Every structure is written in structure tokens, then in C-alpha cells.
């Protein structure tokens, strides 16, 4: 290795380091004993097709989902479509086919893709972090280690001027980025973790949320489509041959109708719920989470939004505040910057960017009323509680002398967090 030029900084010279092999863009060289990442993956995932497919450990329910969708659609195409195509229009099987293709495509993409798993810290990085945390605790010199387990370590970062606590993940040995969460089923930290869905056999996170949303949306349409046309088929037949004969002629229709009827409520409900989550820029984890830490973080982020966007306070507390509620669907509004969520890949930009932009504009117009109970599909009670709490917290910003009980609660929440 020829001695490198070194820098003007030091007298001795450093050997030139070969950089060729460290480039990630280099084509891989097959070496004896070189193992692929998925073969040494530390999480509880299963890999298929030479690492191209990544799923959770328990995939039984996923196969049930596949069977339900394929069998119901298959029965529809086999038994109902011939009659419908002949009697109404051949466009019905075509549209049904397109919907089925969408559903299967998005389901497989959701199930097989990486949800946005954060790689665990390398031993060097973990050691470096431990050193930093150790130094920090030595300096602090006061935190009482509660009980057997050392207190969970948090790191405070400044996001757009507001302090947010990042939690330390003991398994992955990293400080989780904002909105990341650890999935206990898959034993991974996932970026912008939504939930672990057994129906798709995978976590739903940043990288596959758009596929998941498209899946439940297209499945809602498919379910309603099949249900509607099965009913139409039976009705048309019963005009000709009577109701019981119609059922006897196409027994599959009964099965399809039952399956679709049972699933339409949950699927359509879930689509509506996720539409609401997208429009309010939340994840399921953030919406339904009981963790005080995340609630406090959301309080802070919402408080961050308001001072930037409005100068005078025009709050209207519609209902008496309910103290001490742990689960709240407090809409997260915009991100601290009011910028659309950073996309992993650009297809995400379409829905989120437009919705987040709309949200920002609405905020600027109305001040603080970015989600009124009539706009959001979620239970109005919970939502107005959330708005009220937000109002009270922002009142805390503008009017420190306010002594309402909610103010106390939120302060207590924050204080509890900081003592951890």
C-alpha cells in the first residue's frame, strides 16, 4: 500500500485505505463463507425466495386471508359472472378482475416487503452509545435507578424547536427515531410503526403502509362489489325462477354473500379508520397507544404547531374537560415542520403530501380547529376531548397562570416522563 499523502494536520503519513470494497454499489463477489444479510438477520422474521420475501414468524392467518379472498373471488367469477355478463354487461367480470388483481397485488406487496426495519446497532455503535449514556448518568449523578432494571434511557432532541424524547431500545441498542416503535412479535424496531397485522402476516410500517392502505381500500371495494352483484344475481334469478330455486341454482352465491356481509363491516371500517389516520398524520400505534410518553410527545408536538401558526388565542372549550384519561385520540396535526411525512419512496407522496398540505392550509385559515368532530369519522366525543386538551395545553403556553385541571394533568404527564 503506497503511503498516502496524509494531511497537513499530522506529520506522520497514513496508508491509503482501499475504498473499492467498501462501496455498497459494488457488485457482490461471491466468497466462500460469505453469508447474506437475511441469513444472519437478528429479528424474528422468516425469509423466502433467497431473501426477496420477508414475513413475520406466524403466517397462518395470512394464508387464511389468501384463501378467503381467492375462494370468494373464484366462486364469484365461476358462478355469478357468467349470468351477470350475459344478462347485464360483460364489464362486471372485467371490473371484478381488475379489483381482484389490485387486491392480490397489494396484499402480496404488503406481506412480502420489509416494513422499514431499522438495522440493529453494530457492536461499535452500541458501545459508543453505552459510553455516552454512562457519561451522562455519571454527570447527572442523581437519577435513582428504580428497582431491578435500570430506568429506561431517553435522549432529548430538538425537533423544530420543541424537545422530544427519543426512547432507547434495549433489544436493538439504538435510540429510536421519532415515530419508530419496536414490534415485540417480530423483535424489530420499525420506522413509523403502525401495527403488526396478522392478516397480512407482517408489520405495517413506513415502507409498506401505502401497500397496506391500498390493500384494505381495494378489498373494501371488492367486497362491496361482490356483495352487490351477488345480491343482484340472486334477485334477477328469483324474478325468473323464484327465490328458493335461484338459491338452489347458484349455491355459491349464498356462501359469497355470507362471507362478504361478515367482512364488509370490518374492512370498510378499517379503511375509514386508516383514511382518518392518514388525514391526521398519525399511525395506529400513536392513535391507540397507552404509553404516556407518546401522549406527552404528541402534546408537545401539537403545542409546537400552534404558536407558529397563530398569534391570538381563540379557543372554544365545548365540553367540560375530562381529567386523567389515558387513551386519547389526539390528532397529531401536522409534523413539527408542517411538512409532509418524509417519504421512503415517492409513491407515498401522493396521498400524504396532498393531505398534509390541505391540513396545513386549513390550520392557517382556522387557527387551531384542524379537525372538528364532524369532519373526522372517529367518535366525536374522543376527538373533542383531544381538541380540548390541546387547547388547554396551548393555553398553558400563552397563559401560564391557567390553573385548569387538564393543565395540571398534562404538566404532570410531562413531569412524570422527565423523571424516568
Amino acid at each position, binding site marked *: *500500500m503506497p503511503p*498516502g499523502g*496524509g*494531511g497537513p*494536520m*499530522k506529520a*506522520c*503519513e*497514513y496508508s*491509503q*485505505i*482501499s*475504498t473499492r*470494497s*467498501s*462501496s*455498497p*454499489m459494488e457488485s457482490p463477489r461471491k466468497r466462500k463463507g*460469505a453469508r*447474506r*444479510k437475511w441469513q444472519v438477520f437478528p429479528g424474528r422474521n422468516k425469509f423466502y425466495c433467497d*431473501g*426477496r*420475501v*420477508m414475513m413475520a414468524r406466524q403466517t397462518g392467518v395470512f394464508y387464511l386471508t389468501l384463501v378467503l379472498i381467492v375462494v370468494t373471488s373464484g366462486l364469484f367469477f365461476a358462478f355469478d359472472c357468467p349470468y351477470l355478463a350475459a344478462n347485464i354487461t360483460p364489464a362486471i367480470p372485467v371490473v371484478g378482475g381488475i379489483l381482484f388483481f389490485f387486491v392480490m*397485488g*397489494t396484499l402480496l*406487496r404488503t406481506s*412480502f*416487503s*420489509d416494513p*422499514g426495519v*431499522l*438495522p*440493529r446497532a*453494530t457492536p*461499535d*455503535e452500541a*458501545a459508543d452509545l453505552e459510553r455516552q449514556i454512562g457519561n451522562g448518568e455519571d454527570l447527572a449523578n442523581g437519577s435513582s435507578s428504580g428497582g431491578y432494571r435500570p430506568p429506561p434511557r431517553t435522549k432529548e432532541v430538538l*425537533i*423544530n424547536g420543541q424537545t422530544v424524547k427519543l426512547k432507547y431500545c434495549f433489544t436493538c441498542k*439504538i435510540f429510536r*427515531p421519532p415515530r419508530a416503535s419496536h414490534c415485540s412479535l417480530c423483535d424489530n424496531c420499525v*420506522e413509523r410503526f403502525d401495527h403488526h397485522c396478522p392478516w397480512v402476516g407482517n408489520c405495517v410500517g413506513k*415502507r409498506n403502509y*401505502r*401497500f397496506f392502505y*391500498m390493500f384494505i381500500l381495494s378489498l373494501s371495494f371488492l367486497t362491496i362489489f361482490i356483495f352487490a352483484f351477488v345480491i343482484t344475481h340472486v334477485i334477477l334469478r328469483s324474478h325468473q325462477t323464484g327465490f328458493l330455486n335461484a338459491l338452489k341454482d347458484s349455491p355459491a352465491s349464498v356462501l359469497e354473500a355470507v362471507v362478504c356481509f361478515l367482512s364488509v363491516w370490518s374492512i370498510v371500517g378499517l379503511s375509514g379508520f386508516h383514511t382518518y389516520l392518514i388525514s391526521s398524520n398519525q399511525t395506529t400505534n400513536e392513535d391507540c397507544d397507552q404509553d404516556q410518553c407518546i401522549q406527552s410527545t404528541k402534546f408537545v408536538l401539537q403545542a409546537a404547531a400552534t404558536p407558529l401558526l397563530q398569534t391570538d388565542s381563540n379557543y372554544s372549550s365545548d365540553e367540560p374537560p375530562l381529567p386523567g384519561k389515558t387513551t386519547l385520540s389526539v390528532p397529531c396535526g401536522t*409534523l*413539527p*415542520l408542517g*411538512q409532509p*411525512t418524509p417519504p*421512503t*419512496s*415517492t*409513491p407515498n*407522496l*401522493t396521498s400524504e*403530501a396532498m393531505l398534509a398540505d390541505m391540513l396545513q392550509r386549513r390550520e392557517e385559515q382556522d387557527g387551531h380547529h384542524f379537525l372538528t368532530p364532524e369532519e373526522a369519522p372517529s367518535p366525536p366525543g374522543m376527538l373533542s376531548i383531544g381538541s380540548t386538551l390541546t387547547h388547554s395545553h396551548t393555553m398553558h403556553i400563552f397563559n401560564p397562570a391557567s390553573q385548569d385541571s387538564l393543565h395540571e394533568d398534562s404538566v404532570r404527564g410531562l413531569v412524570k416522563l422527565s423523571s424516568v
Partner: protein
Amino acid sequence: MGRGWVRCRWGWMTDHIQKFHNLQELRRSASLATKVFIQRDYSDGTVCQFQTKFPAELDSRIERQLFEDTVKTLNGFYAEAEKIGGQSYLEGCLACTTAYIIFLCMETRYEKVLKKISRYIQEQNEKIYAPRGLLITDPIERGMRVIEISIFEDRGSSGSTSSSSSTSSSSGR
């Protein structure tokens, strides 16, 4: 599909380059002394930006300006990747209507920028960092959480701790 499409089709975890054999080559000529981790800078929100603060460990190894230029350029690349504009809208709408099948044939803008970043880091390593005994690891290898800069010492140079060199073999995951 997001990050690292070319290297890792279905996510960075399924990439098939194992790094430790590369580091073994490096250790022939130099020994890994320590690593510096440049953390994310969240002051402008959750977009991917890294802190430009000059770490103390690099004080004697590289000029402040060079380091800051590298990090600022990387930040610029990431901002460009996440930028939302007409092209990204079109790409998104097209992908949505084709049930994302189009991504089997086409590369997203984000992936194109990631490739650019990779080439840039390699070029920086070759031209600036390797001559000074430093090596930058692409942040995507670390989940976009840190920029890892490895500091190497010449074999036979006195004083430096090389105990971390034994852990570097397992750092290849």
C-alpha cells in the same frame, strides 16, 4: 420501494454484501482505531439531515471545512430525494394506478438519488478520506440513523487503542 432498491431489493436487510471481509483487507494495512458517529439533526423536522458539528476525534485528521462540505452535500442529496414536486406526484399517481407493479421495471426518484449518494460517498472516500486514514460508511447501512466514520491508525503507530479492531469483524452483522 424506497431505499436501497438497487442493492437490496426488498429492503436493506436483504442485501447480500457482508462487510467484514472488506474490513479484513483494510486491517492488513491499517488497524481500526475508533469510530465516530454523526447523529441525525432533527432541528428542521424529521427530514433526513445529519449534524454538521465537527467531532472532536477528527480534529487532527481532517480539515473542518472538508468534513462540513461532505455532510452538507449529503444533506442536500437527502433533501433532494425527499423533495415533493411535479415529478414525484406523477410517479406516485402512476404507481398507485398500476398497483405498484411499475416499480418492478422502474426506479423511483429516491432510489436514483440513493445511488448518487453512494457514488458520492465512494468518491469522497477515495479522494479525501482514505488518504487521511478515514472511511465513511453510507448511512443507509445504518438505517439512516448515523454517518459512521471509521478512524484507522497505521500499524505500528504507537499509543492508539486497537481493541475495537477485534469487534470490527462482528460489526459486519
